[in-house]
């Protein structure tokens, strides 16, 4: 599903956020990405979402070389990826419902299906009663759960999550991880960057440990 070969990313001169990273993640895998702060976890996820372009090497996802996609193809590719970022990235002007259902709306999903599916994913994160709220009216944890619901809504083939439980209490964190596991069980590839060792232990899946932009043995 995901393949990187000699992947490097430098910001400015000589600072490697990622250095010569070669990594394969199979379709349907659930992988944790760990490593100290500044190791390059977010950088890898940004490359996978084509927010950044590699300095060297290549990334392919589902056979697509991300560096070769046209602007329109990048958009189509992104619609097949669900992401949860540290800073949620919710549109403040849109309600919870609109935020979660946007991609379905773009794809022309029938309105009833949009409603049903949005309700369903919001229920999974325990926010079905806040459909008409605006992001500013929600707590940090609630916003994070809306972002998770949005990532799930479109039944993507790949989910990228950067500290998806950073703002959640332990119980909720476990629940969210269970959610990701269920999604993964239905065939979606999941890549989660996190510091939370307890979650990793609990979930018991493959761990990729990054250090100074390079993959090392899990500590």
């Amino acid at each position, binding site marked *: 599903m995901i393949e990187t070969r000699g992947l490097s990313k430098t910001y400015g001169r000589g600072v490697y956020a990622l250095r010569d990273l070669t990594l394969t993640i199979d379709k349907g895998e659930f992988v944790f990405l760990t490593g100290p702060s500044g190791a390059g976890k977010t950088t890898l996820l940004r490359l996978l*979402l084509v927010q950044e372009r590699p300095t060297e090497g290549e990334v392919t996802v589902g056979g697509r070389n991300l560096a070769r996609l046209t602007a*329109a193809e990048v*958009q189509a590719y*992104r*619609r*097949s990826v669900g992401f949860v970022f540290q800073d949620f990235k*919710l549109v*403040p002007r849109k309600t919870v419902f609109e935020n979660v259902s946007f991609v379905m709306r*773009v794809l022309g999903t029938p309105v009833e299906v949009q409603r049903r599916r949005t309700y369903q994913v919001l229920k999974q994160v325990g926010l079905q009663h806040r459909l008409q709220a605006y992001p500013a009216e929600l707590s940090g944890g609630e916003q994070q759960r809306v972002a998770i619901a*949005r990532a799930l809504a479109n039944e993507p083939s790949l989910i990228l999550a950067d500290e998806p439980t950073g703002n959640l209490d332990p119980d909720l964190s476990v629940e969210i991880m269970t959610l990701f596991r269920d999604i993964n069980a239905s065939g979606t590839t999941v890549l989660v960057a996190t510091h939370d060792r307890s979650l990793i232990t609990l979930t018991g899946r493959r761990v990729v440990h990054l250090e100074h932009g390079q993959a090392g043995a899990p500590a």
Partner: protein
Amino acid sequence: MRALRYALDEALVSLGRAGRTALMATATIGVAFFVLGGFLLVLTNLQRVVEDWASSAELSIYLHDETDDEARDRMAERLAGDPAVAGVEFISKAQARGRFQRDFPELADVAEALEENPFPASFEVRLRDGGADDAGAIAAAMEGDPSVADVRYDRRWLSRLSALVAGVRVAGLAVALVLVLGAALTVMAVVRLSLQARRDEIDIMLLVGAPYAYLRGPFIVEGTLQGGLGATLALVVLWGGHMAAGAGLGLTWQALAGTGAIAFLSAWQALSLILAGLVVGALAGMVASRGAR
């Protein structure tokens, strides 16, 4: 269709929020199109008058006193046979003097006292509608005739007037174009502002994979709406002005120009103006929304 619907919804919301700035842009477009429409209105009416006058042009052909009746009849026949000619009237020397005495009663005695009648005989030729262009040809032919002393026709100053109208048209269009360009720039500035106000939102839309039609569409629609609204507003104001002017100046104009009431722009012209407003707005929106990526 879906993208269009979305764009329309979003544009309306955005326009609602932009409020005063959007109104300013619409007003600027309105002013530009008011000037453009005003020029069109004035030009159309001037053009009509010039054409009217040109088509009712007359030709006066003065004859030498020595011209005999035979030569005179031949000329009358020739003129009457010309397809551009609507009618020919012969004014004899005596009739010419009579007319002068009628027009200037104080000088009637002077004219009577003269030993010899100084007034030449003439043909007064009325041209058919649209025959104004032939006036020159007829005049040239007649000037070559030995019995003809002089040919007068009002064609010369009419063509000068036509040239003047053409000049006004060029100048007017140039001014209007500059104004329309200014209006387009204003719309661009407003669209760019609302784009900047929503920069974060656009970045998020990009990340979730919104197609470019969804990203740029709202801004293009926003520009289009401003342009169309501005042009329509201009037409409405122009129409109001036309009605007011018609009430105040209508009779003077009719007396002066000798044509009917001041005409408003034709439906075709009005529609073209609105269409132009829409196009200018759309283009401005398109250019401004290129930043949405």
